[in-house]
């Protein structure tokens, strides 16, 4: 009975797990098998050949570089901005009725409707160009990653601020008061009292930020097509173009590699967070 009881939780997960296995895990496993094969209509086993050619591929290297840069920077900035703005807004947050709504609004605006605005802002002769007095197409130049990061920030910062804010408001005030009594300034309070307590929330925020940042590829695709400027050529481009070229195995190999990395990172992050929280307590 006891042995069975241990598995009780699985029972609750099962309905979801059934569907997840059917629609996500099975396809993913099958996709993993494709990593070691080649051919379109008839698949042949090739061993590690796909991985070798993937790592030697210039386009892939470029894509990895750009993706790490853009997604990494956006996630970092998103979390930082979320934290800083939340700390700034904290005191007065209750006064701003309805601020939550405005923070959420960018998320509710569909990407498709925004495309025309992005074009107006960043294309040649757009607002940004005329403000800076240059005639550059900011959607295809070396500075484009900054524009893309800007787009990600615009869409997700508010959400992250809300996430952090809500947990800030829940922190027990005693610690802060104690620190204040000891003469700590705002910065010190934030650094040594508040942030450590926010760590679990920040971990959650990081994952949500990664999830949201990856969605930018759709916008880039809609804006610039299959082959954008090389500075914003992302892994998703590499994958979908290889799909169009019927190199499905390269797609799955790239994805598999990417997800191994993400898995390890998250796993390590989670471990660290657990460790850190335990230490705190």
């Amino acid at each position: 009975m006891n042995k069975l009881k241990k598995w009780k939780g699985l029972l609750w997960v099962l309905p979801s797990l059934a569907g997840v296995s059917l629609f996500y895990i099975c396809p993913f496993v099958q996709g993993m098998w494709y990593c070691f094969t080649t051919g379109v209509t008839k698949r042949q086993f090739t061993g590690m050949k796909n991985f070798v050619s993937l790592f030697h591929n210039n386009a892939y290297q470029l894509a990895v570089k750009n993706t790490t840069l853009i997604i990494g920077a956006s996630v970092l900035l998103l979390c930082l901005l979320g934290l800083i703005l939340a700390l700034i807004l904290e005191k007065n947050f209750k006064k701003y009725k309805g601020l939550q709504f405005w923070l959420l609004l960018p998320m509710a605006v569909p990407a498709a409707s925004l495309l025309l605005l992005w074009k107006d802002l960043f294309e040649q002769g757009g607002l940004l160009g005329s403000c800076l007095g240059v005639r550059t197409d900011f959607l295809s130049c070396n500075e484009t990653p900054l524009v893309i990061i800007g787009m990600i920030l615009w869409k997700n910062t508010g959400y992250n601020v809300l996430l952090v804010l809500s947990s800030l408001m829940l922190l027990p005030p005693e610690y802060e008061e104690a620190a204040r009594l000891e003469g700590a300034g705002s910065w010190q309070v934030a650094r040594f009292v508040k942030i450590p307590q926010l760590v679990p929330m920040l971990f959650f925020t990081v994952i949500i930020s990664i999830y949201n940042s990856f969605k930018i590829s759709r916008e880039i695709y809609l804006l610039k097509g299959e082959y954008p400027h090389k500075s914003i050529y992302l892994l998703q481009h590499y994958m979908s173009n290889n799909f169009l070229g019927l190199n499905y195995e390269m797609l799955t190999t790239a994805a598999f590699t990417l997800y191994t990395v993400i898995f390890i990172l998250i796993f390590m992050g989670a471990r660290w967070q657990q460790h850190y929280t335990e230490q705190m307590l």
Partner: protein
Amino acid sequence: MMKYKKWWLVALGISLVLTGCQPGQKAQKEVAMGRYLEESLCFQGEDDSVQSYQRVYFENLKGEAEAIEQDFAREKDIFRCWQKDQDGTWKQADTALSNALNQSGLTAVTAVEKDKTLNKIYVIGFKYNAAQNSMGEPMGMPCILEMKEGAVLQEISTEFNKEVPTKFIVHISNGKMITLDTEGDSLKEYDIESGRKIREMAEDVKDFVVLQDKLYLLKNGKNTLLQCYDIASGEKENESQLPDEIRLSNMVAAEDQKGVYLVSQSGIYYLQQVGQIPEKVLDGNLCNLPQYSRPQLCQGIFYIDQLQYVYHQELPTVPDRKVTIVTVEDNYSLKQLVARYRKENPESSIEYITMAPYVGESDKTNAQRNSEAVQKLNTQIMTGAVPDILLLDDLPVDTYIEKNVLGDISELITETEKDNSYYEQLINAYEKEGKIYAVPLGFKIFKAVGEKTFLKEGFDLSKLAAYQRQHPDEQAVQFSEMETGELVKLMSSFYKDKLIHENGSVDQKTMKAFLEDIKAVLPSQDPNACNYEGEPVIIAAQKKQLKAALKEISTAQDLQELFYAREQMRDGMITSHIAGKDACLQPIQIMGLSIKGTKNEEAKKFMQYALTQKRFNNKDLYFFYGLSVEKKENTTYLSGQQKDYNDMMEKDEGVILPTIKDGILTNVYLHDWYTEETETYLKQLEQEQVIRPVNEKVAEIIQQEAASYFEGSTTSQQAAEAIKEKIDLYLSEQNLK
């Protein structure tokens, strides 16, 4: 544990319900018999010179089937009448109505309708009168005539004339007439006696049908709506949206007055009541059902444009031998071919699938539709659902060859080659390592009209560009019927070897110069500034097929063959001489057999059939020459016709032939050909070589960057750099380098 069993069951139940109510495809019906087949024209007259007609009427005062057609091709409009005899064939006959019409002085007749309640026939048409337009030509005035005592047509109600613009679709009963104004799409009701307008019934109407006392309206927009009105009260009773595939349809009432048939390109559908799901009675995928053409129904046979659709009881509804053909865009010629094949092999079924069907006023650009289609098709291919035969236009042919999607068809070709010598050359376009993967069955020719110096000795872009830079005001060569993008693609195919090194990388310097040259020769904004005088030249021609077309012209046995061959040439040459020595081509209707298809005997058979057909028949011609299909031995139509034309040309009359293009009647000016000319062409073409087009993706990249350069947003240097970068990226990404 027992306590939460209930919850568990609920969750299970929900997931079961959700998975259980999949509206999966219904099982195929059991083998039933009977289906409609497309058949060629029934009205086969003796007079082969008849070139076009419109059929407007179907029942005479006695209630017999009688068809009135109007011959447009003559100087004077002629009305001919056909009657159905006992074995079901239509025979030409002089009837009271046709005689009366011919004597009436009417020119274009837009409607002949019978008022069944009063047993009268009304004709709406145009009549020339004394008034003249600004050009000093007589003006056609609309009029309505009433058929009296069998033969005499009497013009009625002058008041009516002022009200009535061009009317096409009409219903008459009880002395009241409902008309559809084809320009304004508005539906109005008139009293015939007084000619007064009774009421305006609806707007934005594309077609209508009157069934008993109900009026069914078809409204076409982004969505097709079918509305039902009560005629007496004018109240809307019912409305439903028709499925997407029945867009752009026309209607005809069922003969038992119990329902309506909807005819669109995707098929003929029967609908008994508004709101019901239409039942498909004919699959349009394999037919040539036109858009915007009003169908007629007579004794169970549909008459649409110049084709008829006859029900065959002895044929199985779903044939057992199956072939799937996939095309990106709807292709009339292919459909035509399929239809003909099916007629010859009624026991086999060919599934014709369009990946990016044109559904009415779509908001998507062609590029978007195509890339979606390619993505869909690739997914299908990768999941193993490979079609047997692919029409490779707009598809990445090179990738498909590379990835072994296409099978070797050299076997099929060697068999058919014997009687079609010209295919042997065409075939090389998609030959790789001794295997042949696809064959273009058609070609497109671009033409350039301009100064002799630039065209006669072979076309040279940089030479032309240099001249244009010095003389920016004139235009030495006009590339007609060509968008900028197409021109870029064509030219980059032309200079492929210079622009792209053997290892695939782009020569940036040459590319820059190339872009600048193209910009210099681009047609100027003002079309009037173009210099049309000079000699046309083919800078792009799939020579061997062109040669074949020319050969056909010189050896054409009858009018149809002659016109067919001319039609093929029309895009390419208007008159006179070819001068270019280099040729560049745009192969079209590239057909390939997939690996899967090579195992399907029926698919192979069809492929072979396509090859032996030499060419796809052209729908325009099929329609147009419907009346002159009949071949006669030992009759040299060619010379006879030529003489006629020569006479006309001498009199400076030209030859204007009406033809149906995209469902719209247009006039095409055909020029004459001479045997000596053809021979000159043949000789020149023999010396030329085939050039393969540049890779689709590469062309796309060049086109994109070139466009932004032409717009002025980038410099040629930047554009060339971007092209090099992107192409390098593409090549390394696809492991092609």
